[in-house]
């Protein structure tokens, strides 16, 4: 296949298939988890599990005192790479065009220079967390191949996107193909790796909040 044929494939069937795999996988994963079921709680509730569950879903996104005593590295690098990635994904004009083609919805974009900053910060923070994964004994002990695989899958769209926008290394068409493929691989990988936390985080937080909320504690 030539570059142009690859581009047509990744923009056409590739995007369709990866999005379908993502949706299928995510729906599968969520429902599979839900239908595993859990026992009804017979104890008299002190609080509403629903309300506390929803609150935890939201509040757990924010740092609160007592979350760490070791310093702020994890917090800062974690927020930076998440925000860097999400802002770059959601607020770059050309990405909005993609979402618009899927959903018909669009929203204001951030200037390309701002997006460059968010992408570079995102990459820098990802590099920092990778170094830390090796350097920190706790994270090193917890890590398996999937953590490193997911790191690569996350950083690639950011790196290839920057190369594409600034036309570094390869011609535009080739970089566009590589960039879209990196996104498609990420999309397919999300439901089947720890990256599924992009959705299941809300389920986990809800359960956490609901379990504590049942007892009247806002977790």
């Amino acid at each position: 296949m030539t570059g142009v044929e690859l581009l047509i494939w990744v923009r056409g069937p590739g995007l369709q298939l990866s999005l379908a795999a993502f949706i299928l996988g995510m729906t599968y994963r969520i429902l599979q988890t839900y239908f595993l079921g859990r026992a009804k709680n017979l104890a008299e509730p002190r609080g509403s599990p629903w309300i506390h569950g929803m609150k935890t879903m939201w509040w757990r996104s924010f740092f609160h005192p007592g979350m760490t005593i070791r310093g702020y590295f994890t917090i800062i690098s974690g927020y930076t790479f998440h925000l860097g990635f999400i802002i770059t994904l959601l607020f770059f004009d050309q990405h909005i065009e993609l979402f618009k083609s899927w959903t018909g919805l669009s929203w204001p974009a951030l200037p390309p220079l701002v997006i460059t900053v968010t992408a570079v910060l995102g990459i820098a923070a990802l590099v920092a967390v990778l170094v830390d994964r090796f350097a920190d004994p706790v994270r090193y002990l917890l890590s398996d191949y999937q953590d490193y695989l997911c790191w690569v899958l996350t950083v690639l769209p950011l790196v290839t996107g920057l190369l594409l926008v600034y036309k570094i290394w390869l011609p535009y068409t080739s970089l566009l193909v590589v960039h879209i493929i990196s996104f498609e691989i990420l999309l397919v990988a999300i439901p089947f790796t720890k990256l599924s936390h992009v959705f299941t985080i809300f389920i986990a937080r809800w359960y956490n909040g609901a379990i504590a909320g049942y007892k009247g504690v806002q977790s």
Partner: protein
Amino acid sequence: MTVSVERGIQTLKEHIDAPVASFFTTCVHCGMCADACLFYTETKDPKYTPIYKLKPLRRLWHQEYTFWGKLAAKLGLSKPVTAAELKAWEELVYDSCTMCGRCSMTCPVGNDIVYMIRKMREGMVAAGFAPSGLKAATERAITIGSPMGVKFPALKNQIKHIEADTGLQIPVDVEGAEYMALLSSMEIMNFPEYIGAIAKIFHNADISWTIASDAFEATNSGIQIGSSDLAAELVERVVAAAERLRVAFVISPECGHAYTALRWEGPNLIGRPYPFEVIHILELLDRLRAQNRLPVTGKIKEKLTFHDPCQIVRRGGVVDEPRRLLDMVAADFAEMEDHGIMNWCCGGGGGVSANERAAKLKLTAFNRKRHQLEALGVNTLVTACANCRITLEEGLEFNNMDVAVLGLAETLAEHLEEQSTSATTETP
């Protein structure tokens, strides 16, 4: 029937539910739970990272309840959980976890890690990998009625002393009483003042209450070792006594896990809702306070603080009550930096104090509390859990710290203002 790794795995399969699946699906291996665990912060040993303590359970979930995991297991890419592995994990699941639940509060993706440790212990018991100290305590609880081997005659003896000291009658086996008070063996043996304290307060507030001679023990070693079957048996005894005496309320005493066992796990263990209400002594005292039935006089002048028992506060939901009660008698109440639902455990909960093997690690973990107390600079520490109280006293003594540990109910009883017209007030 015999304990075996197969039986352990079978048991774990029973206990992996939707929340567990969502937690393992979501974990990103960020390691932030390590910072929440006093066993990690005081040792810096990465193996004490809370989520790491669940590694075998995670693999089992993956192999049994996910598509790729089942495939990997079939292809031999994922190794089955072995007895040796569970044995190696015994220390992590029991010795280095007090089930305080602080990690569950800080996990950024919302994993309730302690919820899973509780389930992991079910499998460990069925596989035969529980610490011998906990096993012995549980055995005593089932066969004798108390983990410390306390039988009713011993309690009766203590009651006699208290009745002599206070001049009040301690009601035993009174049918139709409104409240049935439970006690922990530790209170009976180490802190009998508690019994006198509640007797004084209840008398003053004109509360009808009783102790059941056949079900006075509140503690539940089944919960600590992590066996629902054994825990249910112990709960059933309390429920039977409460039903026999037709009480409206069962009072959970100043004991952490007893509250979790009776209030939150109990109905689920026996498989039916209670015909009575379980109320924690602090909740009851706070209700009396609100109804002006707990008049106190005089205030403690020394600066003091409150140690939150994890199972009562963070895991139990009784957060503000002890603070409101303390305000009545403390002139200079100060909070530790992390308090309330973000408190640090004493280090002896979750069966750790019954596990002799963990004694040294428990004292190391106590350093967390030592630093907190030193930072605050107090010499008086009030708490509301007999197990916390013993652990704290041990830790303070080991570190040669001059800090007095008080029970909250006793502290209130000491400041009680005798009321002659108490009979006129309504019962709560």
